């Protein structure tokens, strides 16, 4: 398959890039519109897209859930943007500088920027957003900005972040999706979670809200006063919430939707359409939302305290098979706790890998003292796949078959999301749990939480669910939080990856890749690392 060839290419390609910060715009991963020969954008037109589930808010400063992540950047800008390879670029901030000790970061703000209601954007808004909103209400912001002590505003166009200790990861989280800047004049002094502006956004972004039918659709219209002059090109973006994936396919195919982001189609349909001449598949632009499918071993269970059992299980699961047949090629076999899009840190060098080897798995289990019983069964386990999407369940079904072959009887338990979260992170009543989680723009943001012993917090979802604790890993992770030197951080993470894959408290199953599939006529929807999770200001429709 053309697709898989391409992915092999990419893996080797990325290995080569591992030591250098990615070149802006140089990661031409597919024949995506980002690299089509320059055409003059045409103005006007409506872009229709579909998604699911519906949104609660339109403002990603108070939640980290998915629907808001897509919607919010259209209305709100961040201080920075990111080019391919997570290279910072200006947005609301035009210049930024970090003090020697790494404890003060100064942002020069863009002059003349106006909120959708006509008020001027100032440094007060920045200070308010970080101190009152992101630090308090944003799930990741709470830990990420934990050491942000104050935002000083010497003048209207300068914001100085005062940090308790250096925070190198912070600069990767200042885009409109992760840290949208809210208008202080709307939010200050109100109950932020219940402010009506959460669903009637007033931002500085490229689009304004035209209409919103809860659970059905969002219509965005061009912000004529957008600071990035001449943009956006589109007059309107229509987002329809469609629960059924096949229906979404049908809509795209029938031309009732122009483009579908974020793997919202069944993978097989995406591939089928991609093979048609009128459609185009783009896999770039999801660097801030890189996700791994991974499986936690509950290390509180006696049986998993023996690393040989974990290793045996790793040997029994062909992760490439899962990539090919569960993800239909949209991903790479899991090789590291990090995601390969975290290019600056991702490595497989010296990182133990567990190739499919059922004999070895059986040998390890025998060795660990779990011989096959009379009925050929060594022991029984339960797996809890996350109820979002089919991939966890399907992968679990595959794992069940593999386990059967090495004498482990595996029962799949499905439940709804609430029960899943409660079972795995609150009640801790599970053996294995399989889920897909975001690795974040920086490992400190997204990866550390699963391995840091201080983040073993029952009751907190997507914390250290395996209850893994290794002082060496803790030390590495804590050091990397404050390390300003990129090379040293890279080394710290390389070491971390080696240890984590040796201890294997969590088995990385697939490094997933996301894709955008759309009609050829939709141009320039993915021009940087944020892709569709940016503001789509460059997107235009040809014809």
């Amino acid at each position, binding site marked *: 398959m053309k697709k898989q060839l391409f992915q092999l290419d990419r893996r080797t390609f990325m290995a080569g890039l591992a030591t250098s910060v990615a070149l802006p715009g140089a990661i031409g991963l597919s024949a995506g519109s980002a690299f089509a020969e320059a055409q003059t954008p045409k103005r006007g037109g409506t872009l229709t897209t579909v998604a699911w589930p519906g949104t609660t808010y339109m403002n990603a400063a108070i939640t*980290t859930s998915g629907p808001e992540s897509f919607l919010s950047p259209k209305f709100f800008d961040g201080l920075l943007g990111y080019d391919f390879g997570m290279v910072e670029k200006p947005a609301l901030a035009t210049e930024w500088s970090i003090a020697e000790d790494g404890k003060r970061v100064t942002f020069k703000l863009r002059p003349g920027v106006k909120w959708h209601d006509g008020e001027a954007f100032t440094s007060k808004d920045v200070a308010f957003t970080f101190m009152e909103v992101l630090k308090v209400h944003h799930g990741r912001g709470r830990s990420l900005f934990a050491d942000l002590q104050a935002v000083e505003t010497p003048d209207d166009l300068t914001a100085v972040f005062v940090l308790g200790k250096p925070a190198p990861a912070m600069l990767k989280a200042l885009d409109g999706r992760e840290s949208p800047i809210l208008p202080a004049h709307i939010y200050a002094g109100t109950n932020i979670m219940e402010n009506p502006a959460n669903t009637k956004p007033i931002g500085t972004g490229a689009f304004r809200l035209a209409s919103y039918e809860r659970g*059905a659709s969002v219509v965005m219209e061009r912000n004529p006063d957008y600071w990035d002059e001449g943009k956006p090109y589109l007059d309107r973006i229509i987002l329809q919430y*469609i629960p059924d994936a096949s229906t979404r396919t*049908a809509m795209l195919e029938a031309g009732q939707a122009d483009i579908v982001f974020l793997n919202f189609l069944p993978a097989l349909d995406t591939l089928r359409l991609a093979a048609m001449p009128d459609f185009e598949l783009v896999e770039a632009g999801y660097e801030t939302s890189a996700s791994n499918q991974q499986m936690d071993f509950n290390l509180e269970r006696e049986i998993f305290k023996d690393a040989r059992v974990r290793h045996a299980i790793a040997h029994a699961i062909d992760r490439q098979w899962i990539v090919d047949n569960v993800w239909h090629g949209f991903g790479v076999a899991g090789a590291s706790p990090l995601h390969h899009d975290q290019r600056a840190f991702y490595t497989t060098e010296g990182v133990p890998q567990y190739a499919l080897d059922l004999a070895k798995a059986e040998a390890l289990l025998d060795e660990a003292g779990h011989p096959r019983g009379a009925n050929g069964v060594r022991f029984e386990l339960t797996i809890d796949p996350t109820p979002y999407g089919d991939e966890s369940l399907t992968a679990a079904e595959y794992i069940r078959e593999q386990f059967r072959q090495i004498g482990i009887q595996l029962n799949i338990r499905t439940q709804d999301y609430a*029960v899943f*979260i409660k079972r795995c992170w609150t009640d801790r009543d599970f053996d294995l749990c399989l889920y897909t989680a975001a690795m974040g723009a920086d490992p400190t943001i997204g990866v550390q939480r699963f391995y840091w012993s201080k983040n073993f917090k029952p*009751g907190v979802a997507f914390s250290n669910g395996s209850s893994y604790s290794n002082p060496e890993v803790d030390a590495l992770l804590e050091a990397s939080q404050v390390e300003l030197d990129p090379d040293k951080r890279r080394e710290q993470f390389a070491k971390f990856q080696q240890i984590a894959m040796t201890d294997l408290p969590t088995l990385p199953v697939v490094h997933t890749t996301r894709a955008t599939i759309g009609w050829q006529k939709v141009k320039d929807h993915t021009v940087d690392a944020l892709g569709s999770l940016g503001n789509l200001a460059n997107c235009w429709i040809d014809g």
Partner: protein
Amino acid sequence: MPRYVLRRLSQAVLVMLLVVIGSFFLVKMAPGDLVDVLAGNSDMTADQMASLRVRYGLDQPVLVQLFIYMSRLVMLDFGYSPLNAAPVLDVIMGRWPVTAILVVSSVVISMTVGTVLGVISARNAGNPIDLSISILMLVLYATPSFVIAICFILFFSVFLGAMPIAGFATVGTQATGFAYAWDVVKHLAMPVAALCTFYVAIYGRIGRASMLEVLKLDYVRTARAKGLPERRVIYVHALRNALLPLVTMAGLQVSALVGGAVLIETIFGLPGMGRTAFDAVFERDTNLLLGVLFISSLSVVVVNFVIDLLYMALDPRVELA
């Protein structure tokens, strides 16, 4: 009349009370609550979760929660839907019309089409027309609505490119008046048709049986003995009486349709009550789920009341007793 209304009303209140209590305990049976879901979405700490539980009253004993819920319900306060960041009533008021239109038009259309088919079948009892209609109805009866819905989309929208697939109306449409109505009709045609098929079959079968039974009755013989044209015997004398079991069926159908709408709303991307309930279950939006169950049950009760009145209009024998 007032006596009858009063009795029906007290029955309805009792039924609604049972619905509320029943659905409340059902919802409370669930392991995991709203806060667990919110925590999953927002990386919350245990403290924050605890304080959220206090905020939503989830820390109270279940009976206390029920009491609080019911006393608020009396004032038509359905609480707040965290999933939608809006009061439950607002959410439901936005979704109710979709399902209502879907269900009402399905009832009307399936009843009409089913009855017509049933009557044709009964009048041709035993001959090839009857046989082919009967086979058609069996197939419609046996084919799940979601299979039919998928076929509709593939044929009418993808293959023919003729019908809009999803939504209640064209999103962002500026159309008003007749143009808007036509837009809605086009959008709802496939969902309604998919929802109808099963009931067309049911009405057809009941209609046929009922018609055959009525045609054997004495007063039909009287009508014939009067020398009335056959058309009048069938459509004036027999049909009206044959309709009675169909009307009874309609009462049950309304409730079933609201449920069946889940699938159809899912497939056709319609923001209706069914899909809302489905999502509410999975997001543990208790207030929303209870609200949807309450309002849809209430609608069913009201519709059944209307159907009773209709039945009374059709059948004068049903006295106000």
